[in-house]
C-alpha cells in the first residue's frame, strides 16, 4: 500500500555554506561558522551562527515581496528554490510540510512604534492608538505569523498541494518531515517539499533562549528536501539522492546534531532538516536513523540511506 520515498532534491542555507555540499564539507572539516554578532553585543556571549546574505532573490516573483519576509521566511524560500529546481511535475498537488519555529521576530520593526507609544517607560494604550499606530508597519502582523515561511514557499514556487506548518523547537522539524514522508508514501500527494527554517540570531530570541536556560550561541538556517515516490523517481530518470523511511526505531547515537550545533549554534526547527541534508549531501555512506521528537510519537523515527543500501 505505502510507497517507498526517495529524496530527489535538496536545498540548504546555513552559516557553514549555501549548498548541501558546502554544509557537509564544512562539518567534515570541523569548521566553525560562529562569529561575533553586533546585534548580540550586549550579551556575555555575542557569538551567533548567522547567514550573511540569504540568497532569496532568484526565487522571488516580485522583489518588493521581500519586505514582507522575516528572516525565517527568506531562509525557507532560499532553501526550497534549489530543492525544487529540477522538478518538472505538476505543482498543483505538490505538498509542502515545514517546521517553522516559535514565531519569527519582527527584526526590530515594531520598536519605533512601541517607543512612540511609551510614556515614562510604560506602554500607554492611548499613545499606542495615536503616535504608536502612525509608526506601526501595516504588514507587520502578517510578517510575524509562524506560517509565513510556508506561505512564501507556496506563493513564490507555485506549490498548491497538501500542507502544514508545525511550530516548536527541534521536534517540529521531525514532525514536518514525518508528515511529508507519510503524505507521499500514502499517495496523498505526488511529491512534497519537506524541511524547516528557523532564525534565532536576533537579540530578542537570543535573550529568550538564555532566560529559558538554553546553552550555547544561537544560529539560523534552513534545509528542504524534495520527496517523490521511489518508483516514480526511477521511472522518470530522476537522480535519487537517498531513500527515506518512517518507522519505529531509536536514533543512531547522536547523529550529526552535536557537530551542527557546535559549528552553527542552535538551529531550532531547522535542526533535523539540516542534519538529514548534511548526511545526504555527504553521500549517505551509512544509514542514519533519527528520532528527535520532543514528545512521544509512534513509529516516527526517520531513516535515510543510499538507494544501493
Amino acid at each position, binding site marked *: 500500500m505505502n510507497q517507498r520515498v526517495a529524496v530527489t532534491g535538496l536545498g540548504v542555507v546555513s552559516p557553514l555554506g549555501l549548498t548541501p555540499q558546502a554544509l557537509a564539507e564544512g562539518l567534515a572539516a570541523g569548521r566553525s561558522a560562529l562569529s561575533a554578532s553586533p546585534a548580540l553585543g550586549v550579551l556575555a556571549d555575542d557569538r551567533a551562527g548567522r547567514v550573511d546574505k540569504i540568497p532569496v532573490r532568484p526565487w522571488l516573483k516580485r522583489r518588493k515581496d521581500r519586505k514582507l519576509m522575516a528572516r525565517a521566511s527568506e531562509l525557507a524560500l532560499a532553501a526550497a528554490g534549489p530543492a525544487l529546481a529540477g522538478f518538472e511535475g505538476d505543482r498543483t498537488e505538490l505538498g509542502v510540510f515545514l517546521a517553522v519555529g516559535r514565531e519569527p521576530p519582527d527584526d526590530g520593526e515594531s520598536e519605533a512604534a512601541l517607543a512612540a507609544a511609551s510614556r515614562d517607560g510604560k506602554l500607554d494604550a492611548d499613545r499606542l*492608538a495615536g503616535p504608536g499606530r502612525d509608526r506601526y508597519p501595516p504588514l507587520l502582523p502578517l510578517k510575524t505569523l*509562524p506560517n509565513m515561511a510556508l*506561505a512564501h514557499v507556496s506563493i513564490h514556487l507555485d506549490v498548491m498541494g*497538501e500542507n502544514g506548518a508545525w511550530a516548536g523547537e527541534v521536534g*517540529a522539524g521531525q514532525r514536518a518531515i514525518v508528515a511529508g514522508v507519510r503524505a507521499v508514501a500514502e499517495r496523498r500527494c*505526488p511529491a512534497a517539499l519537506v524541511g524547516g527554517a528557523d532564525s534565532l540570531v536576533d537579540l530578542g530570541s537570543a535573550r529568550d533562549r538564555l532566560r529559558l536556560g538554553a546553552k550555547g550561541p544561537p544560529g539560523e538556517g534552513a534545509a528542504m528536501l524534495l520527496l517523490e515516490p521511489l518508483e516514480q523517481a526511477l521511472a522518470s530518470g530522476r537522480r535519487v539522492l537517498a531513500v527515506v523511511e518512517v518507522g519505529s526505531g531509536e536514533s543512531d547515537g547522536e547523529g550529526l546534531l552535536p557537530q551542527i550545533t557546535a559549528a552553527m549554534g542552535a538551529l531550532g526547527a531547522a535542526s533535523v532538516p539540516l542534519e538529514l541534508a548534511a548526511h545526504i549531501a555527504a553521500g549517505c555512506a551509512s544509514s542514519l536513523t533519527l528520532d528527535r521528537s520532543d514528545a512521544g510519537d509512534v513509529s516516527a523515527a526517520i531513516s535515510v540511506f543510499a538507494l544501493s543500501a
Partner: protein
Amino acid sequence: MTFELGPRAPSPWGWRSPRAPVPTAAFRCEAAVNNIDLDRFGRPRVVVTGMGAVTPHGIGLAAAWAGVTEGRSAIGGITRFDPTGFPVRFGAEAGDPDLEDDRGWSIPESVAHLAFDLKGRLAVTAAREALAMAGLPRLGARAGVCLGSEAARPSLADVARRLADSEPPDAATLARMRPDAPTRLLAALVGATGPRSTVSTACTSSSQAVGEGVLRLRRGEVDAMVVGGVDVLVDPIMVTGFSLLGALSTRNDDPQAASRPFDADRDGFVLGEGAGMLVLETMASARARGANVLGEIDGFGCSCNAYRITDSPPDGRGAAQSMSAALADAGLNPEDVDYINAHGTSTLMNDASETRGIHKAFGSHGGVVRVSSTKSMTGHLVAACGAVEAIYSLLACRDGVMPPTANLDRPDPECNLAHVSRTAERQKVRRAMTNAFGFGGSNGTLVVSALA
C-alpha cells in the same frame, strides 16, 4: 468491483490523481456492510465522542450552539482594555472561565504555569468539557494531542517592561507564549503520552489539527486524539496591527452589525477569541468501550493558494482544491453535502473568492447547497475557528438545524449562494462541510456527519 469517473480519486489514504476513478456506491457500501468499524475505503472510521467549546457566546457547548442557532451576535465593545482612540473599538471577547471546576481533570503541577493566561484557561476549559462528554479515562501512550495555535502575544505590560529594561520576561511567561504551550498543557492534563503536535497555519490551524488527528487514527497510530484550537486576539497590539492592514470592520457605531459575511455592505472581519476541542476515536475504540458517538469526520483536505500573502485568489482556486480534496477523501460527491459552514470572514475578498471556490468545487450543486457563516455572530476566532466551526457543523448534522449568517440583509451578487440568512433553518443535514482559510493562503476543509 466497478468504478465510475468522479471528481477526484482517493487512494486508501487520500487521493490518487484528479482524473482517477472514484469507487461506485456499491463498492463503497461493501466495506461498511462487512465491518462497521471501517469506512468505504477500508480505513478505520474516525468518530467524535466529545466536544467542548468556549466562544464569545459563553462557556460551554450549549451556550455556543444556542448563540449561533438563535442568530445572536456576541460582538460588542472591547472591555479587556480601554479602546478609546483605537480605530476599532469592538471585538468578540470570550468569557474568562474558572479553572476550579475541574470535572475530574486537574492540572498537573508541572504545567500549571501554562494555564495562567487566558489562552491556557480557554484551552483547558474546552478540553475538560470534551473529555467529560467522551467519558474517557485518563489517557496514555495510545492517545495524542494535536492543536492549532499561534504564538501568544505579549501583554502591553510585558512589551513595556521589555522596552524599559531590555530584560526578557520570566521563563514561565516565555513558555506560555510559545505556540505549542496549549498542546503541552493539554497533553499533561489528559495524560496523553502519544503524538503531540502544534499546527500553526493562522486561521487554518485547527482545521488542519483535526485533519492530522484523523490521519493518525486512520493509520492506527493511536486510539484517541484530543484535537482542536485556541486563540486570543482581542488585545491592543493585534487590534492596532490588523486595523492598519485594513482587514477589520470599522463599524464602531454598530458592532453587532459589523460582521456581515456575503453582504454587499461588508467591510472587514471582527477579531474574536475562543477554543474548540474534540475527542476523536476510531469507531472500533468507541464501540469497544460503549462510548456515545456524536458524529463522524468523513473527510479532510487542504491546499495552498500560491497567490498572495494578503489576498485570496479571485477565482477561488485554492479554496476549491481544498473542498474537492475533502470530498475525495470522504469518497463523496458534491450532492452528498447539504450544508457548508463557510469560512465567510466578512472581508470583500474572502467571501467572493470562497463563493467562486464553492461553485468550482460543487458544480451545479454550488447554487443548491445551503451556506452560512457563523463568524457573523462569533467574529473570527483565527487559530480556533476551524475546530469551533467543525463543532457547529457536527451539531447541525445532529440537530438538523443550520445556523444562519446574521446581518445578511443584502446579499452581494458576487456571493451568489443558497444562503441561510438571519435566522436558523431546520433541514435534515446528512453531511456538512466546514472551511477554514488562512492568512498566507493555507486552506483546510473537513466533511462531517452525524452517525446514521
